């Protein structure tokens, strides 16, 4: 979807401020959001593409008014409700419980000890690569053009790089396709290409000099470039 999350090239967001000696988390709840997200993912409640798409579906003004982990929280909560793991009513009631009890810990709301057997989140084992089932359509050096138009659902082709000509710089392997995987339509793996775009192709005469942007793009985002600019 072409939402406010698709920020490449946008104006109006001001300067980049770096925080000296930034701590890993600014509050413990941020770490808790990471744990909840990983546990849900590890339990197979949702995949990473569904998670990213869930965040994209935040109301646009809330997306822009929220911090990174607030957006994660929103994305995880939406999926846990949509997937039927928790009900919206239970989530609201439990939220009210803790709102009335500042400082309470998560298990204070439990009437019995939690059941055994919960997964501990693990890191690093997942792979997004899949075996190739067909030769790749493009080779390094090929001129390609990206798909034009709006994205109907989740996509990883940014808006600033639509209908633009570039050159294949690398074959990245065959990967799970987010555009289907985010919508329950399977992994449908495709070759991914590292494609280089001259800044001038992307930004016209407002481009800075001597710049390229490289974007990793799935095969169905690309077609052979018929036009020469």
């Amino acid at each position, binding site marked *: 979807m072409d939402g406010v999350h*698709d*920020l*490449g*090239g*946008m104006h109006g*967001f*001001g*300067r*980049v*401020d*770096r925080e000296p000696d930034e701590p*890993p*988390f600014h509050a*413990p*709840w941020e*770490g*808790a959001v990471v*744990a*909840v997200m*990983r*546990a*849900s993912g590890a339990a197979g409640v949702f995949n990473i593409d569904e998670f990213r798409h869930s965040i994209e579906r935040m109301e646009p003004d809330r997306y822009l*008014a*929220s*911090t*990174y982990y*607030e957006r994660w*929280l929103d994305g995880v909560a939406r999926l*846990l409700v949509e997937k039927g*793991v*928790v009900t919206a009513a239970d989530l609201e009631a*439990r*939220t009210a419980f803790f*709102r009335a009890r500042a400082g309470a810990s*998560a*298990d204070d*709301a439990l009437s019995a000890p*939690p*059941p*055994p057997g*919960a997964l*501990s989140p693990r*890191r690093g084992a997942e792979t997004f690569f899949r075996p190739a089932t067909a030769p790749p359509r493009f080779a390094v050096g090929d001129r390609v053009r990206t798909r034009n138009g709006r994205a109907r659902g989740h996509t990883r*082709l*940014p808006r*600033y790089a639509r209908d633009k000509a570039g050159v294949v710089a690398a074959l*990245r392997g065959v*990967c799970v396709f987010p555009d289907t995987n985010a919508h329950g339509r399977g992994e449908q793996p495709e070759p*991914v290409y*590292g494609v280089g775009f001259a800044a001038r192709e*992307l*930004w016209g005469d407002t481009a*800075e000099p*001597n*710049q*390229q*942007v*490289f*974007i*990793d793009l799935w095969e169905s985002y690309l077609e052979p470039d018929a036009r020469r600019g």
Partner: protein
Amino acid sequence: MGKNHPNVDDDVVSRVRALESLLLEKGLLAPDAVDRVIRHYEADTGPMVGARAVARAWRDPGYKRRLLGETTAALADLGVEFDRLVVVENTPAVHNLVVCTLCSCYPWGVMGLPPTWYKSFPYRARAVAEPRQLLAELGLHVPPEREIRVWDSSAELRYMVLPAPPTGSENRSEDELACLITRDALIGVAEVAAAG
């Protein structure tokens, strides 16, 4: 303007606690999972794996070739399992910069937690379109004759910059060098400075 720092917002905290407690109840969240995540990132802050790889690459041309060409194996040498890193090398002719415009993808497994500025809206908006001006604002002046390559992490590949070694690096140990390498240098918004 997109807040960088969270409200101390009771409702957010209560909502997180609620999810935590509901998942505990259903056996989906281990009782120690939250503490483990927090302890992990508080102990293992910053980009230490990436910094070690870069320091070794500076000292060992063979390792550098492996890091650039067989990255997964080169990371395994350091005990890190991560099969999707791409390392891009800064040279006199090319400066590299990493961003994720669509969300905030970042090589957590190699470089730890992303800094808040990397996830900020202005960085995501500007890095692909006006990197030279952005870097200048951050104190890194890239001369016009040096190409800037911006890597937008749109797929599951993750990017790390191999910065240029600081002057005098040949006289330092790998461990000393690793301590000089900042997260910002691995993202491409800073050079590695020689320590005093």
